[in-house]
């Protein structure tokens, strides 16, 4: 309970050296024939974290989750949960529970019986199980549906039954496979916060698999980005977003504009990048470990670009372009700007006033500028 308060209050056990990880995954590999689904994954997850495994389809995130649950046997490597090695522990004896992507509710049982299933397998008496089930159904707001069968429920209700069923045994670790994938957008957003509340109130460690980067950002304490079976970056949501380690990650999380260039001036406290695509030099006001004339990439998020009609008259970090496309999204507008080099830039501008007399329109000449610290320099 202590550490729960700590994480909820913004403590970060993954930074402190003294903290012992709750789940230790070391060198975990899974091969299906010639295909390596999970490739030497090492990961430490701490008690009461809400950890998201994020990646495109086929990146190995579900296989990793299934190995944690015990449905797949690792080809190599170890899993340790709360100090216990899981190598010879079958799925039914593991201190984990899983919420399936398809929910996998037992179609021949009522909601009540579905939720009670896990308790009864542990030899909990019927009356006590009934009590706990009632409490759990209250938590997920399904008390009125206890007698219904899964096929009489809506998608959102089924999702909550699945959650209740996987939480009833108070597992040390709850594994969630695309838990919100089958819900529509509005319901998904509501449920995300419900999920966080439930996780915080019960103090269970969650590992969530998702391909939806927004979902990962909203839910998680930390995100592990996966690509081709490997974990390519682990970090808090803002680290992943603002400090991606590679072009792949920058591109996968959110949208990004990427310039390729060469270092033209490498000083201790700034770097200047010559970029043909941008027809201006890019000035970065912090040191980067690179060498003169090295090829690298400069990535900048659309919301960090400023779009104006007048030339802001900076020496660097200003490019001229023509508005090619505008997408009005209500809260913000997305501009596609064509530069002289032919490169397209994506710029977002929040719509702060209800009426804009001087709105930027199609084919207008505009200037795009950004701060010295707004972008990320990437070498891979």
């Amino acid at each position, binding site marked *: 309970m202590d550490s729960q308060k700590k994480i909820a209050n913004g403590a970060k056990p993954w930074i402190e050296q003294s903290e012992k990880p709750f789940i230790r995954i070391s060198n975990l590999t899974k091969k299906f024939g010639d295909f390596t689904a999970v490739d030497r994954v090492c990961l430490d997850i701490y008690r009461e974290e809400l950890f998201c495994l994020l990646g495109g389809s086929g990146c190995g995130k579900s296989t990793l989750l299934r190995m944690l*649950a*015990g*449905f797949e046997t690792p080809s190599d490597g170890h899993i340790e949960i709360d100090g216990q090695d899981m190598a010879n522990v*079958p*799925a*039914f*004896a*593991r201190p*984990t*529970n*899983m919420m*399936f992507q*398809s929910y*996998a*509710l*037992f*179609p*021949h049982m009522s909601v009540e019986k579905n939720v009670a*299933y*896990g308790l009864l*397998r*542990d030899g909990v008496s019927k009356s006590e199980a009934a009590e706990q089930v009632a409490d759990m159904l209250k938590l997920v707001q399904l008390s009125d549906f206890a007698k219904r*069968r899964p*096929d*009489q429920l809506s998608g959102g209700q089924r999702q909550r039954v699945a959650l209740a*069923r*996987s939480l009833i*045994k108070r597992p040390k670790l709850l594994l969630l496979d695309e838990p919100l994938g089958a819900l529509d957008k509005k319901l998904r957003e509501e449920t995300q916060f419900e999920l966080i509340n439930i996780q915080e109130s019960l103090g269970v460690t969650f590992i969530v698999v998702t391909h939806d980067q927004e979902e990962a950002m909203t839910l998680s304490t930390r995100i592990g980005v996966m690509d081709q079976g490997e974990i390519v970056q682990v970090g808090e949501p803002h680290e992943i977003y603002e400090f991606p380690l590679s072009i792949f990650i920058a591109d996968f999380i959110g949208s990004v504009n990427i310039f390729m260039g060469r270092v033209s001036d490498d000083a201790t406290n700034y770097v200047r990048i010559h970029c043909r695509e941008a027809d201006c030099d890019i000035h970065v006001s912090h040191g980067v470990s690179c060498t003169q004339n090295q090829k690298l990439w400069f990535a900048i998020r659309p919301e960090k670009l400023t779009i104006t009609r007048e030339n802001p008259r900076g020496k660097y970090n200003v490019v001229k372009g023509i508005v090619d496309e505008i997408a009005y999204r209500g809260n913000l507008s997305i501009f596609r700007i064509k530069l002289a080099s032919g490169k397209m830039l994506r710029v977002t501008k929040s719509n702060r006033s209800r009426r804009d007399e001087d709105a930027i329109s199609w084919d207008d000449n505009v200037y795009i500028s950004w701060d010295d610290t707004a972008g990320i320099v990437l070498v891979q």
Partner: protein
Amino acid sequence: MSFSANKATFGTLIKRTLVKRIRFRGRSLVIGIPLWWLIVFFLIPFVVVAKISFSEAIIARPPYSSLLEWKEGGFLLLKLHFSNYLYLLEDSLYISAYWSSIKVAFFSTLIALLVAYPMAYYIARSTERRRNILLMLIILPFWTSFLLRVYAWIGILKTHGIINNILMSLGITSEPLVMMQTNFAVYVGIVYTYLPFMILPLYTNLVKLDNSLLEASADLGANPLTTFFKITLPLSVPGIIAGSMLVFIPVVGEFVIPALLGGPDTLMIGKVLWDEFFSNRDWPVASAVAIVMLVLLVIPVMLLRNAQNASRAAST
């Protein structure tokens, strides 16, 4: 069973087809062909049998009296003999034959289920390539005559047959076991013959079983045995019912297997029927036996169907 459903809609279908002019559209053609098939090959023979069962046995050709008779003065006389049905009640042979047929059918269905379930389960859980090979092997015996296969069992079970020869040459038994012309042989023959009819519906059901349900059960702490009894078995009940029907119903009326493999004490209604028709030449009583058998089978099937429909309606 499909034929009972067809029977239920029979009256309405006939009315509709006869009242309306037959329109040669695709729809009426599609419904019409099986309808006429059923009328010609099911309903008419059934009516004929029913008619004979109400007549009287006479020594003539055909060996029964006609129901309708013209009397002087333009009377049309309809004579219905219920005596054939009453006779079935009087002679204990028929009741015990019915009872013993149902008993044999019940136990053969049970044995077939116990043998077929693991086989169907294994096939359903195999890889797709192996699955097709195994299904092929299940269906393969149908390509040879059923009669020949039953005769083959005589060769296996008889006093100096394959089994006894092996047992005696190994010194396990000193005298041949008596297997032929016993109820044991009848059970062996029936279970062997009807096994595919149990396996196929069970397989069709089990192959649809969502693997994630089994994983969810394991995940919630159920060992494989508990998972089987709590998840797999309840979800395969429709397959069990379908397979049991396909075995039970024909076995009740089975004639060939008890006649070839059974002995004098094997009492089954199919055999009684045969004797009544061909040895005794009492067609009316034989017809009554057939009608009673049909009623005995159709009523429980219809009740079961109604119960299933009711439970389905209650759940939605």
